[in-house]
């Protein structure tokens, strides 16, 4: 019985191809928008969680300098994060003071400078950013550093100074392989390792720049090439297991302020919260837009169904004359509008999935979170509930839009309907 009704409804849709197509299009747009937005938002959420998880929620980021007090309207943590976003000039910090703090497990330092580089594959000189890593970073933050696997050569070892590990792309540009030499600030350094190409850029586990173009030295080498030993661009502090990370970050700020070198800290937890908050407000706006386009689609269905009822008054009269009850007419029209919705939903899901995948690729690599991130590995997520939900929603919305027209159809008196010209 229900199958027969579906068949009849389908025929109703087919006989008005052009109008049905346009109506379906309205729903497609709405559903595609909803699916794409949710998939992208979920993808972002998942990516962020994954990245922050990888850095570790026990990590405190420390940059030299105080966040400016100028923008009082900004909440404190926002101000701090904004400061992180702008980056810091760097300053000499006595990080050994931090190692003594209770609840601190490891401390690492990163120093970035712009260096004059010559290499076999480079014409003339290049001005490129080099990154000095302390042994605290490479040893104390293994998970943090796990984004770097070597394609060849070795990692930094005890006593290494004028050695360099290159990202695969920059190694190619330099025309060098493991064992070759390049000069940095006129000093010859040996290439001891080359990183594996990272597909997505990673979030660089918080390190500056794209690792594919990274030029990494022991921090001691950067100190002796550029002077100002002990200068730090970014320090990482790992809280001991079970420690209150927020408290640790406060202790770090206090300790460095006492030493006369104020710093600003933020925890991974804070960054994650801020990112989530930003994401959800963006999401709310996008969801509202998507909801409006769905509503417009539903009104389109209502309009089409209302016209369909008017066009088919006589047909309704005929069906009633041969024994159709109210519920039969009602279900015919509801099924028809529901089917229009469902077809729109299926196509909308397809379009939405395609859109979100493409958008995911575009967003990937162009998104920055904080000073320590370059590219952002990102892909949209399509949970089964999203797909099923979108289909159910579009059928439901279609049927709902058909209620009013279908009721009008069902209420027609058979004699009146048959007389209708």
């Amino acid at each position, binding site marked *: *019985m229900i*199958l*027969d*009704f579906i068949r*009849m409804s389908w*025929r*109703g849709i087919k*006989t008005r191809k052009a109008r049905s197509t346009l109506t379906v299009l309205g729903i497609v747009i709405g559903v595609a928008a909803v699916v794409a937005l949710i998939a992208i938002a979920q993808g972002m959420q998942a990516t962020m969680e994954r990245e922050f998880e990888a850095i570790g929620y026990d990590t405190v980021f420390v940059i030299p300098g105080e966040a400016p007090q100028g923008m009082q309207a900004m909440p404190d943590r926002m101000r701090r994060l904004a400061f992180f976003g702008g980056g810091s000039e760097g300053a000499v910090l006595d990080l050994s003071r931090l190692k003594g703090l209770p609840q601190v497990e490891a401390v690492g330092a990163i120093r970035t400078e712009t260096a004059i580089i010559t290499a076999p594959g480079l014409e003339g000189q290049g001005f490129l950013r080099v990154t000095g890593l302390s042994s605290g970073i490479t040893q104390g933050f293994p998970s943090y550093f796990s984004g770097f696997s070597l394609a060849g050569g070795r990692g930094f070892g005890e006593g290494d100074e004028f050695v360099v590990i290159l990202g695969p792309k920059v190694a190619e540009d330099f025309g060098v392989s493991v064992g070759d030499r390049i000069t940095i600030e006129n000093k010859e350094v040996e290439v001891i390792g080359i990183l594996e190409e990272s597909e997505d850029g990673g979030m660089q586990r918080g390190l500056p720049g794209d690792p594919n173009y990274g030029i990494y030295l022991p921090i001691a080498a950067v100190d002796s090439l550029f002077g100002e030993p002990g200068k730090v661009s970014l320090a990482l502090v790992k809280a001991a297991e079970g420690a209150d990370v927020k408290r640790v970050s406060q202790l770090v700020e206090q300790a460095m302020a006492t030493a006369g070198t104020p710093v600003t800290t933020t925890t991974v937890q804070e960054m994650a919260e801020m990112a989530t908050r930003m994401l959800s407000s963006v999401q709310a706006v996008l969801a509202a837009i998507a909801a409006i386009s769905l509503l417009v689609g539903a009104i389109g269905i209502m309009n089409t169904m209302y016209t369909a009822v008017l066009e088919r008054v*006589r*047909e309704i*009269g*005929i*069906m*009633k*004359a*041969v*024994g*159709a*009850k*109210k*519920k*039969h007419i009602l279900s015919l029209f509801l099924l028809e509008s529901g089917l229009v919705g469902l077809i729109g939903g299926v196509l909308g899901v397809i379009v939405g999935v395609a859109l979100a995948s493409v958008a995911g690729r575009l967003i990937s690599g162009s998104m920055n979170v904080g000073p320590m991130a370059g590219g952002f590995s990102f892909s949209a997520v399509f949970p089964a509930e999203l797909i099923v939900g979108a289909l159910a929603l579009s059928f439901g919305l279609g049927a709902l839009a058909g209620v009013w027209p279908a009721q009008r159809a069902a209420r027609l*008196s*058979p*004699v009146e309907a*048959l007389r209708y010209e």
Partner: protein
Amino acid sequence: MVELVEAVKTYKLGKTEVRALRGVSLSVKEGEFVAIMGPSGSGKSTLLHVIGCLDRPDQGRVYLNGQEVSGLSEDRLAEFRGKFVGFVFQTFNLVPTLSALENVELPMTFQGVPRKRRLALARELLVQVGLGERLRHRPAELSGGERQRVAIARALVNDPKLILADEPTGNLDSVSGAQVMELLKGLNEEQDKTLIVVTHDPEIASYAGRTVHIRDGRIQEVAEVQT
């Protein structure tokens, strides 16, 4: 089979009232073939609708097959006419988007008859009315006479006891008209269907066993015709 007692039907058009039936009493026995004649606007169609449960009288009673139907709800009426009454209209009233076969199937769909049986029965009836070669044709692809035969097949498909035809030959030439009348008469004689036909054509009325004349919403006389 059919029993009308003082049926009154009044249509309101704004402030004016059109009294289409002004107290019609009529009794039709099972297996009878009755013609209803009368001038245009006299209430013939209204009478047929009231008999066939398409419409309810404002006053009076209608009994079909011993059951009072004048007080039934709209859905109960729909159910009743679906099973018990077959309609044939002057303008055929086929669904234009459905094929002949599907049009004949339609009443069975609302009775919940399974598809296989519907198809078999619809095909059988179309063959019976001489349209075995036209199953897939849409109404627009059929002649008037063929359309009316599809409508007759449709009227028969739930095996109703009562067949009501409102000027079934009104839109047909005399040859197709005669074919249709022969078909209807055959149903009355061979299958013992009770048949009520509205017409203004005395020739058509002559097929019937009895003619009822109606004028201004009232029955005029009941004339017995020799058979």
